[in-house]
């Protein structure tokens, strides 16, 4: 596709003074629903920025931005007896995801594969089309991040409309797409000198050095195939509570269950899909109680193998982006990087 003139001529490197962040967000709000990280208790959450200010120095969010593309509860259609009407709660205006980290952008690219393919998911696809990604490189990292092992951070190389990097008193803003160019033109950002790229590189390299966790991916496929009966799984059978929290906060988990909900007339209602979890007991259960993953070790093992082995043949990529949310959230402190270290005999 040929670049529109507006984009070809636009500056690719721009700067945004932190003092002008509110103005920038206000300009975005004129053309889109803007979602960004806001404080929720001691954590952060992606919320619609109505009267709230985004806190772009956040570490991570409770739920990944997936919730804005593949909703936790989503009506698929409504019905009245045998008449079916498709429901699509697609936002009328574009939605801007402001300040999402490189790992989460990579995760969205994986979900694009999951919801694409032979049977495209119209609910995801329509919402995705309406979505503008203003990503934020990670100049700070937190204890459970291991993106550098998976090549998904702390720096983002593609997959953004706009990419921000915190340079202290200002953000560097890089333009990735014509849609991004339109937005910065709207907001009137100033050009940044090329030398700011040096500052960016330095800050990202420092962030990379501060990452403590590793998940070594070399020969991971073979390692896991060879260790399907490793004692670590037996230990996890007793350790894991099978609560499913790790799957709820995972930016690449996509499983769902469907439920029919009836109105009080008992004739009309709707079908909705609800996030499901392979950690839950009834996930692989069929009629008459036959359960193909009855034991907890089988379920957590399936999750680990799915992320690190099965995504590759299914979608051409690893299923983990190193965001660390599953480690943050596990009340038993189960850590996927520790599992792999144990399998490697470290």
């Amino acid at each position, binding site marked *: 596709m040929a670049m529109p003139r507006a984009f070809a001529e636009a500056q690719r490197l721009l700067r945004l003074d932190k003092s002008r962040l509110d103005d920038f967000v206000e300009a975005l709000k004129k053309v889109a629903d803007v979602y960004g990280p806001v404080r929720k208790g001691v954590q952060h959450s992606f919320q619609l920025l109505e009267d709230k200010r985004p806190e772009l120095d956040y570490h991570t969010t409770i739920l990944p931005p997936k919730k804005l593309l593949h909703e936790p509860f989503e009506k698929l259609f409504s019905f009245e007896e*045998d008449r*079916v009407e498709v429901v699509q709660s697609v936002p009328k205006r574009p939605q801007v995801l402001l300040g999402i980290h490189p790992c989460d952008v990579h995760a969205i690219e994986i979900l694009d594969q999951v919801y694409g393919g*032979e049977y495209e998911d119209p609910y995801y*696809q329509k919402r995705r089309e309406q979505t503008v990604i203003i990503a934020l490189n990670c100049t700070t990292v937190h204890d459970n991040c291991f993106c550098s092992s998976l090549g998904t951070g702390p720096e983002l190389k593609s997959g953004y409309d706009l990419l921000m990097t915190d340079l202290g008193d200002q953000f560097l803003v890089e333009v990735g797409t014509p849609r991004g160019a339109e937005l910065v033109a709207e907001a009137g950002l100033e050009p940044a000198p090329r030398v700011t790229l040096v500052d960016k590189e330095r800050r990202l390299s420092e962030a990379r050095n501060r990452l403590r966790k590793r998940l070594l991916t070399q020969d991971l496929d073979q390692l896991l195939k060879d260790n*399907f009966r490793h004692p670590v799984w037996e230990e996890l059978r007793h350790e894991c509570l099978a609560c499913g929290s790790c799957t709820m906060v995972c930016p690449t988990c996509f499983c769902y269950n469907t439920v029919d909900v009836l109105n009080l007339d008992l004739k009309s209602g709707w079908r909705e899909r609800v996030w*499901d979890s392979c950690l839950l007991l009834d996930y692989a259960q*069929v*009629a008459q109680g036959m359960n193909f993953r009855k034991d907890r070790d089988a379920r957590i093992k399936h999750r680990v193998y799915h992320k690190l*082995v*099965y995504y590759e043949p299914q979608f051409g990529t690893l299923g983990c982006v190193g965001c660390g949310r599953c480690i943050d959230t596990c009340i038993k402190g189960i850590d996927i990087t520790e599992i792999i270290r144990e399998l490697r005999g470290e």
Partner: protein
Amino acid sequence: MTLINPYKPEPAVIQAIRSETPDTTTYTMKFRDLQEFSFEPGQFNMITLFGYGEAPISISSAPSEDGTFEHTVRHVGNVTNAMAGLREGDTLGVRGAYGTGWPMSQLEGQDVLIIAGGIGLAPLRPVIQAVIGDRRKGNGRYGSMEILYGARTPADCLFKDDYEEWRSAEGVNLLLTVDAVPQGMDWEHNVGVVTALFDQMKSRPADTIVLTCGPEVMMKFVVRGLLERGFSPDRLYLSLERRMSCGVKKCGNCQIGSKFVCKDGPVFAYAELMTLSEEVL
């Protein structure tokens, strides 16, 4: 962008209902509006009873020219129990056909051995009908066909009305067995598990493709017994049951290792299942 919605059920009208056993019923259906519908033996549809939910159910008839298709349903789950209340002329929701069916082109020129247990005969009936239909037309595409079928009791045998036709077809051998015969019931066939019929069968490993469906524990012993008799894993095909909420590789429920049973299956060569880390049988 206009996208086809793969989750929207199409109305289908029940043309006929036939009671198979005390807990199993065959429904003949036809789409009310949808004109184009084709399927292969071994594929399944997602069946909706609005308000109850949706379940994957095998198609139990061979493709027909009048656009009808059959589903043989054991009333054991949420949706299937509710189906027991359906009457002729009622409408339900259907979408499909989904999945990879039996390897029909690979059966050509080969003998066919069908081994089924209980409701597992339902997805195999289209193959039996197709092979007999082919023979009747004189095409001679397939070799001989042997059918080994096991049920709990004589009353639990599916498709009893078909047996006479199957037996009378040229080159077809039907062997029946039941786990138990209640007192006072007539039964002139075998009593015991389905693998007990192996000594009576004529199928030879080198010339035969095996298609099997039934409870996993049955298939486990079927596979073990056939491998011992020299059948090769790439000539054994199994149809698997898994939980499914979409049928189109989205909901994730049906995965075994990297395979989506709804799309890569439900029919798999045993040789393929052997390559998966996650044990199947």
